[in-house]
């Protein structure tokens, strides 16, 4: 049972800050981020690794935080949706492009998409439409039909090639 004695201290870096929290060994990373660290921007859509809403970056690579345990993140460097915006409130170019192209509706899956797209543009600065769709096939959106998400990615990619930081 979940007694305090069984909890482990988890120290990690999130959005550029060194943070610590407590987690039972079985606690998922997603629940740890949300409930222990209060970072509720990471969403849970299926809790079995299919929908991609809980996607975050771990050491620069996208991972599904519902399929990792908090204790596995010990010592790692994470970025969540809360870490995309610049400290002065300027939106990340991918966030800006999603807003401009209407790439979100209810916004529940959006944090997962944003994190996947950030990784895509870092590894593929000039993706084709097919590459975009294939890359994002691990993220499910029920609202947009993906059309404007793809448009947003193209827009963000173009901006990045013009020198915007992604």
């Amino acid at each position, binding site marked *: 049972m979940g007694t305090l004695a069984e909890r482990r201290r988890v120290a990690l870096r999130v959005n550029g800050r060194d943070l610590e929290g407590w987690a039972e060994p079985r606690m998922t990373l997603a629940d740890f981020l949300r409930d222990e660290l209060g970072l509720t921007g990471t969403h849970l859509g299926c809790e079995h690794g299919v929908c991609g809403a809980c996607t975050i970056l771990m050491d620069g690579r996208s991972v599904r935080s519902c399929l990792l345990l908090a204790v596995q993140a010990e010592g790692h460097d994470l970025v969540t949706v809360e870490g995309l915006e610049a400290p002065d409130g300027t939106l990340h170019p991918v966030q800006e492009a999603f807003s401009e192209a*209407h790439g979100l509706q209810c*916004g529940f899956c959006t944090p997962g998409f944003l994190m996947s797209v950030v990784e895509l543009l870092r590894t593929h600065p000039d993706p084709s439409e097919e590459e975009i769709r*294939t890359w994002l096939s691990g993220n499910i959106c029920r609202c947009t*039909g993906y059309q404007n998400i793809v448009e947003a990615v193209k827009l963000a990619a173009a901006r990045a090639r013009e020198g915007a930081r992604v």
Partner: protein
Amino acid sequence: MSDRAAGPRTIPPEELEELRREARPPRHVGARLRRTEDRRLLTGRQRHVGDLRVPGLAHAAILRSSFPHARLTRVDVSGALAVDGVLAAFTADDLRDRVGPFVESGREEVSPLLYEKIDLRIEPLPMAVLADGLVHWVGQPIAAVVAEDRYVAEDALERVEVEYDPLPVVADAEAAIRPDAPVLHPGMADNVVVRFRVEAGDVEEAFRRAPRTLRRRFRMGRQVANAMEPRGVLAGWDAGREELTVHLTNARPHLIRTFLSRMLGLPADHVRVVAPDMGGSFGTGVFPEDVLIPFIAMALDRPVRWLEDRRENLANTRHARDQIHDVEVAFDEEGRILALRDAFLVDSGAYNPYAITVSYNAAAHLRGQYRIDHARIECRNVLTNKAPVTPVRGAGRPEALFVMDRILDVVARELDLDPIEVRRRNLIPPEAMPYPMGMPYRDGVDIVYDRADFPGQLEQALKLFDLEGFRAEQEAARREGRRLGVGVACYVEGSGYGPHEGAVIRIDPSGHVTVHTGAKPHGQGLETTLAQVCADQLGVRPEDVSVRAGDTALIAYGVGTFASRSAVTAGSAVGIAALRLRRRVQEVAAELLEVDPGDVEVEEGRAFPRGAPERGLTLAEVAAAAGPHPRVRVPAGSGFGLQAEYYFVPPTVTFSSGTHVVGVEVDEETGGIRLLRYVSVDDCGQMLNPTIVEGQIHGGIAHGIGNAILEEAVYDEEGQLLTGSYMDYLLPSPTEVPPIEVGHQEFPSELNPFGIKGVGEGGAVGPPAAIANAVVDALRPLRIEIDRVPLTPERLFRLIREARERKEAG
């Protein structure tokens, strides 16, 4: 007309006419404004039920039936109560006599005008919040465990002991109506929960005279809404004030308040229901947990939250479609449909919470854009051991359109005519508009299609699709052994269903405008579009307007967001309230400016005498003059403050329409379908924000694509759900949805002052029919017929194999 006089009081035509004259021309309405809600959604700052932080929060988990039909002989929670960290457990015994019956909301919403007109019978079938003695579907709630932590609550569920005495299972609609079928609910004579019959024209006579007839059976599988955010309920009880506050994922907060007030015995204003940010909905419904969790919070005097997981969601939340239609058409040699008979079954699952919403929608939309003056439609909603069906995006329309546009295709192929040409021959011509359909809508008012140009819509869609180019491509591909096809579907959609929606608009002391409404957006962008409407009619900038929704404390009455209704009903309410508020600003400003109210202009948030903008006042100055104080500067007797409230009660629904054209490639060896291009041309009247309209259409089309080729909630013959996770239930991903091109027609509605028609569901209506028709076209040489969706590769593979065998046999 006599019906309307006897019916509820909707907005009178003369008032509508007057408002239409007074309405200011669109300026911000129609612009592609960026959404104001985006910033919080993009930065992780939105607040869903699961994001709320509440001190002392306890967590509930729910034990659900693993049997589709059984008597519960024992439910023992003592093992769960022994688990460290568990606070309490609840079964039906704890609720009996303390929670009132869960009455179907759909039945109460049926217009009394309708019963006689359609020979309607609805069997009342209240549902228990927790299963009491019997379970009727896999997933039905049996017991709840509450603990200090969600993990512990779920652990403890495994210690609840349930003994089931299995009963015979009714696994599908056809089984439900067999004479020897087990009757699922004690007190009912059979498993038929709804019956109606509606007739337009003279069907028998039309069939007698018809040169040709044919008959087919069509089925649409069971789809699940699949909002990306599963449901959640958080309830807090203030025992001192006897006030209940409930936050939940439900776009009908006022309806939930009514349920809670009645079922828990509280004055309505002692119940506050808040729907915070929601990750979609795609349908409506009141669910047992919406009442159970508040009850538990009251019983424990502690805040309690339950968060649905995806397995619970797939087994319970907003199942839809699941219809079987036996349809017969009479037609002539030119392919003109002369009459139609349809007898259909809706597999409602174990209960029928939405009465006739889905089934009557199917009947009312069956003839779509086609001129078929003689039609008889008979329906039975039947009960089976599956999750209850509720309205989901399209709600009966995709089923109806699949039947209509498929049968039209069958007729065309029977006569060796081009299916697109046969559509042209059957579309209602623009000069016949507005067109009476000879039967009532669900609100009891006779259906009259709004002004529209259906043939023009089809031609526009074919042009956008480049049909000629595609036909050339198809021919070239055929020579390479590749199978391309094109399919068309043409739909109408009654949108803006009543009974009402309201708006309270206030100008605060800083001059900022806040709109409060009972609609509850969950992705539709109403915070932006309602601000656009308000800005135009009041005379301010959209950025001066905040829109607040989803809280019963904001406004006395509300209906909510579903059924493509909010742009129409809330949009009209906001526009009319803003016009009234503008009059108020004019009368107060007139006192200050010492001119006639009629000579005061309100533009860009300033009030000034006509022709003298430099003498203008800010809205803050006007608000200060109107405030309740001894130096108030308002006309005598006109009250204090700058506020307007208006509830829009539409005369009936307003009809949107759309035409879809899709190009597909079929792999004859695997049965796989690849969608190449998708074109939609719609008419939703005056668009509030074309970008948002297009987004709604894109999303609807993707939803419909799932319905057409991927998604199905599958139960086996024993009533077990086989699609309980996303490994088995396939949602469309970016690789299955093709590029979508959208074109528009704009025929303003005459049923509201601003010309608005709804658009939320339309996209989802077309794809099953259009895609099935395209696949038939691709496989023309095989002459296959598609009578069922989803058209999974396995189903299509079998059709291809059977067709080949037929061909080889001669």
